[in-house]
């Protein structure tokens, strides 16, 4: 089963919210929409769900053109960021509501609801009202409704964003299992790069109403096609600096210069390099060989990892390393860059070299 978007766009009062987008989402794995708040993830989902009108383009679900179909007739499910359940109905009735609307027989409804409730561990809560449930249970009810409906497409719009840390991890682990083998195309919107990596499958990177890159998640992470894509898919933010290339030498202003024989294909000139924070370490290693001198601005310790924001003459960067490092804020500290991990982008933002190319 597939959802195919052909050139769809959204324009509200002369402003373009979604630029013409063509993507094919497939079943069998999670399709992640990754982008910051305001990148257009929810807008794109609403277009696919038929909740907002499209300016241009067509949508096909499983080969059927649904562009003109209303939301009611598209046979889809949607789980929101905040928990949407009908407050005056019990959990059972909430899960059953799309089935009742579809006029399904009572015995069949009973079976489907109980199956979904078992998967999401809601059995004991079936006769409660939503306000008597915890946030996690409320969201599980919404998920159960999506599962019981057995629709062709399931849209999950940051479904874990309003849950606490522990529940989020727990539910995130369960999610791929929940929808595995059900045949539905699952589209999952998130603003966290980590979630995209954990859920795997395919990722569509979104920025400013644009799908800037789409493909298998790992591939996109390793080789973003544009500087913008690299920025979207990195948390903490990817380190960027201007460099000049002359022969096989890359020079970052007064901060550093190193040999980049691997990038010899690229002509001489000015470029942007981007390198993920964990490729910049406070200790030299066999890979991390290029020394950078920085002044430590801010440090953060998160138990197993230490991060440091440091200033160089040409750019402010972030280093992320395993273990606890004794940084002194305000003091100079050497950092070591792994030159093979650098991505090289032309001045227009297109990738030139790096990322295992």
């Amino acid at each position, binding site marked *: 089963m597939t959802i195919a978007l052909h050139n769809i766009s959204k324009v509200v009062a002369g402003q373009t919210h979604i630029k013409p987008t063509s993507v094919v989402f497939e079943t069998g794995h999670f399709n992640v929409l990754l982008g910051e708040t305001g990148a257009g993830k929810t807008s794109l989902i609403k277009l696919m769900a038929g909740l907002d009108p499209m300016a241009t383009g067509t949508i096909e679900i499983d080969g059927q053109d649904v562009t003109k179909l209303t939301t009611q007739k598209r046979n889809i499910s949607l789980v929101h960021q905040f928990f*949407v359940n*009908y407050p005056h109905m019990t959990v059972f009735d909430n899960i059953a509501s*799309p089935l009742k609307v579809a006029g399904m027989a009572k015995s069949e409804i009973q079976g489907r609801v109980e199956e979904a409730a078992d998967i999401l561990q809601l059995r004991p809560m079936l006769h409660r009202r939503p306000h008597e449930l915890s946030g996690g249970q409320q969201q599980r009810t919404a998920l159960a409704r999506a599962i019981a409906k057995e629709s062709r497409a399931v849209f999950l719009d940051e479904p874990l964003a309003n849950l606490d840390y522990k529940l989020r991890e727990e539910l995130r682990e369960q999610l791929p299992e929940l929808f595995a083998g059900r045949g539905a195309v699952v589209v999952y919107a998130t603003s966290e790069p980590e979630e995209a990596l954990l859920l795997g499958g395919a990722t569509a990177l979104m920025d400013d109403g644009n799908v800037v890159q789409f493909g298998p998640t790992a591939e996109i992470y390793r080789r973003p096609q544009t500087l913008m894509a690299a920025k979207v898919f990195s948390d903490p933010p990817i380190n960027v600096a201007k460099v000049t290339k002359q022969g096989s030498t890359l020079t970052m202003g007064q901060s550093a210069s190193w040999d980049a024989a691997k990038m010899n294909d690229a002509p001489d000139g000015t470029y942007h390099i981007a390198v993920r924070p964990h490729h910049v370490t406070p200790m030299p290693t066999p890979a991390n060989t290029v020394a950078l001198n920085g002044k430590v601005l801010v440090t953060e310790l998160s138990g197993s990892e230490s991060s440091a924001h440091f200033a160089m003459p040409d750019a402010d960067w972030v280093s992320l390393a395993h273990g606890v490092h004794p940084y002194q804020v305000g003091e100079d500290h050497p950092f070591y860059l792994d030159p093979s991990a650098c991505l090289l982008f032309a001045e227009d933002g297109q990738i030139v070299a790096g990322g295992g190319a």
Partner: protein
Amino acid sequence: MKTQNQKAWFFVLPVLLLVAFNALIPMMTVVNYSVQETFGNNIFFWEGVRWFEELLNSDRFHAALGRQFLFTGIILAIEIPLGIAIALAMPRSGPWVPVCLVLMALPMLIPWNVVGAMWNIFALPDIGLLGYFMNTTLGIDYDMTQNPFAAWATIITMDVWHWTSLVVLLSYAGLVSIPDAYYQAAKIDGASSWSVFRYIQLPKMKQVLTIAILLRFMDSFNIYTEVFVMTGGGPGNSTTFLSIDLVKIALGQFDLGPAAAMSLIYFAITLLVSWLFYTLMTKDDAK
């Protein structure tokens, strides 16, 4: 030993005084009149429950009570569905929202006696716009002062015009408080607009509708000013509602005892119906 802090009474005292002056004392005065026969020069004779007995057995009271319930029933049956329908039809956002809200609020801002006078003139058969249109253009014999049916129809139309807005505004407030997500969820479930109304909008409006019905019940059950100005209870006694009848007894005949007894029964009925209705409507929520 348990120590008791009597100071707490001082904090309750202002409210007690306020309630005493605006409810208890006037009410006790009425209770006082209701058990006595009153003559001039402050001469009183004890009558016990005689006025209550007489009133409860009087055909005149039964007729007025019947008219009152009929009137209230009719206007509730019209105003509540009509109010909900108008609220549903109003725009949820955009430049027309304030225009609609102000238009809706206008009738409610007009003083009651002015409303009565307006409709009185409006309905005059010779020079009133409505009266002239009905009699001359449509050829229907329409005269509020002669025809009981015309009087009822006019008073009901007047009340619908005057007070449907209240139901509209309350329902509208209930409707706009429903997050878009519920409508979206319903669409995704495949719900028709009837199921959206039945399972999302109506339950969300339940509380404001309870208030709307209560307010409209109490107001229409106590209607006086407009009817007094428009028909004075006529033609005959056809629009003599409880309050009109009460004023006739109290000020027209100056029968203070029976009037006081009637006030208390009138009050008890209003209170009882309101309480019953409210208890029934909020029974589910208390669980």
